[in-house]
């Protein structure tokens, strides 16, 4: 029960850490080289001792994990798409297709496409460690906090399972573990960061689809990678979460996607709901005053 000041929007990071402040660390998940091996899911579970999730068969491609949640802090999405490619729909010459294939090969663009035009998109999803993190802002106990690395972590000894962060997250990352009662999510391996180690998922990733490092350096790397992929013909490739002016102030874990975010089950323009809290409080205040006026009118506005 240490002293806490009133927490306003913007949690004061990194100034609050003084000399202990660290550069902001994060992930860059380059989905163009993801091979869907799920080593990240397994490494995360093992290191963080996350309980087993559903063992069922979903029939949804090779994805039996489905979504991030209390027991899934990395989730590899498998998306099957039928997309016409170049020559197949007659828009490109065979020379163009060959040149593009060579470029794609050279830069390691992994989108599996068989003869009938089916392609697989694979992407390892994770907590975005938002700059404006709704989960942290609405947490009434202070269990969610921003670490010296700028990441967002739940303290299991504080969380009382109120569940407010669950619908507050614009990505559906957090959930309550039913037999435990508390909320859990990716910690960006806070314990490993303290020991100068990279997070378990990044270390386990065999293709470097998951890269860990200082966020500023990752942004640069992501930008360069995007240019190369665009050159290789991936014209739908885009960065997701790199814009500090987006609705959550940019992600601490950014992505390179090969299609629209919703294709992967991600929100196309996520927003921190707390950015509207001023307007919401104003409405709640006005409603409270209206109730007061109604009560006065009811009591004094007629016979006793």
């Amino acid at each position, binding site marked *: *029960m240490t002293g*806490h000041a*009133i*927490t306003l929007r913007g949690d004061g990071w990194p100034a609050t850490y003084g000399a202990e402040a660290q550069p902001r660390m994060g992930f860059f998940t380059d989905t163009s080289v993801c091979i869907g091996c799920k080593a990240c899911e397994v490494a995360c579970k093992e290191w963080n001792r996350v309980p087993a999730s559903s063992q069922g068969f979903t029939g*949804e491609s090779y994805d039996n994990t489905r*979504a991030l949640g209390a027991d899934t802090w990395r989730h590899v999405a498998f*998306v*099957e*798409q039928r997309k016409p490619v170049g020559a197949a729909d007659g828009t490109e010459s065979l020379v163009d297709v060959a040149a593009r294939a060579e470029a794609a090969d050279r830069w390691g663009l992994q989108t599996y496409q068989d003869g009938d035009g089916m392609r697989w998109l694979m992407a390892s999803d994770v907590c975005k460690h938002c700059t404006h993190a*709704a989960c942290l*802002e*609405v947490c*009434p*106990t*202070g269990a969610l906090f921003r670490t010296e690395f700028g990441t967002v972590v739940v303290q299991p000894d*504080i*969380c*009382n*399972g*109120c*569940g407010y962060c669950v*619908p*507050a997250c*614009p*990505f*559906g990352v957090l959930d*309550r573990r039913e037999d435990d*009662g*508390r909320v859990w999510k990716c910690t960006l391996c806070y314990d490993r960061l303290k020991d100068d180690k990279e997070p378990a998922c990044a270390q386990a990733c065999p293709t470097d689809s998951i890269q860990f490092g200082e966020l500023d350096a990752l942004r640069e790397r992501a930008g360069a990678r995007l240019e190369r992929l665009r050159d290789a013909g991936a014209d739908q490739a885009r*960065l*997701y979460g*790199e814009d500090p*002016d987006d*609705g959550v102030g940019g992600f601490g874990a950014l992505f390179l*996607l090969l299609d629209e975010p*919703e*294709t992967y*089950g*991600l929100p*196309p*323009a996520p*927003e921190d709901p*707390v950015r*509207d*809290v001023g307007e*919401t*409080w104003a*409405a*709640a205040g*006005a*409603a409270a*005053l209206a*109730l007061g006026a*109604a*009560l006065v009118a*009811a*009591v004094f*506005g*007629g016979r*006793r």
Partner: protein
Amino acid sequence: MSAARPELGTTRLAERPGLPGRDRPDASPTPYGRPVIKQPTWTWEIPVYFYAGGLAGAAAGLARLAELRGNAVLARRASAVALAGAAVSPALLTSDLGRPERFLHMLRLFKVTSPMSVGSWVLTGFGTAAGAGAVDHALGGRLPGGRAARTAAALLGLPLASYTAALIATTAVPAWHESRRLLPFVFVAGASASAGGALTALAPPAAAAPARRLAIAGALAEIVAKDRMERGLGDLADAYRSGPAHAAGIGAQACLAAGALAVAAGGAESRRAAVAGGALLNIGALLARLSVFKAGFASAADPRHTVGPQRARLAAAGGGATGGRAPRPRG
């Protein structure tokens, strides 16, 4: 082979014209119809608390004002209702926690970005004040500061009735977040209907005129405000037009209208009409909370609710192709 393979954009959701899917209104924008956000973990205690907190908050105000007007009978009974609501509310909230023994962690800090944090303090203050006010009544007015405590309860009761709307509006659930301007008015109207209804039923008709006025006004305001709130949601209003939210909404309207009629027609003369009307109004207010609560679950589960408005904002901003950025219309 290819016919059996599920493809993106072909997962059928309930037909909901108006919300953009890929190429059909019933097609999911996400793979396999998966929701983008999580449904709340909250269970039945929460809508019941929304009702009980509103009832208690409005009853405390009614009590103090009736006391000022010299209506001691109404004041005492309304104080008792406020105390009952204040007693039951923390129990409901604690029971919904994943770790109920840690309920005091709610008071570790105070933060205005968290309506739940603000609400925990408001409820704590309200409960203390309502308790002290009731003790003072029981001691025949001999508790020092008893009247001040009842004033405090009356004042804290106002935000107690409206903050719960701010709480659910400050989530990523589209049907809740997009109704943030009107939802608090829906909630305080329901609080008026329930408190007015309860005191119409519990106080002798001769002393209950203010309660009847409050009950009728609250019921009408609730019906009108909730309808306007739903219309204001546009395409998202379908969360209120099917399933449990729809059923509860229809039930709420019927009970509120019938209750208001019973109170208006016979509440002043017949105790039986007053009790029936008051009960109907309270069932109606509870059902209205339940309708809002359930609509949020339906909205969170539908990926079109999450993706549709975001795509619309991107299109309005002219940045539809790249994604990720949505400067928002303000004002």
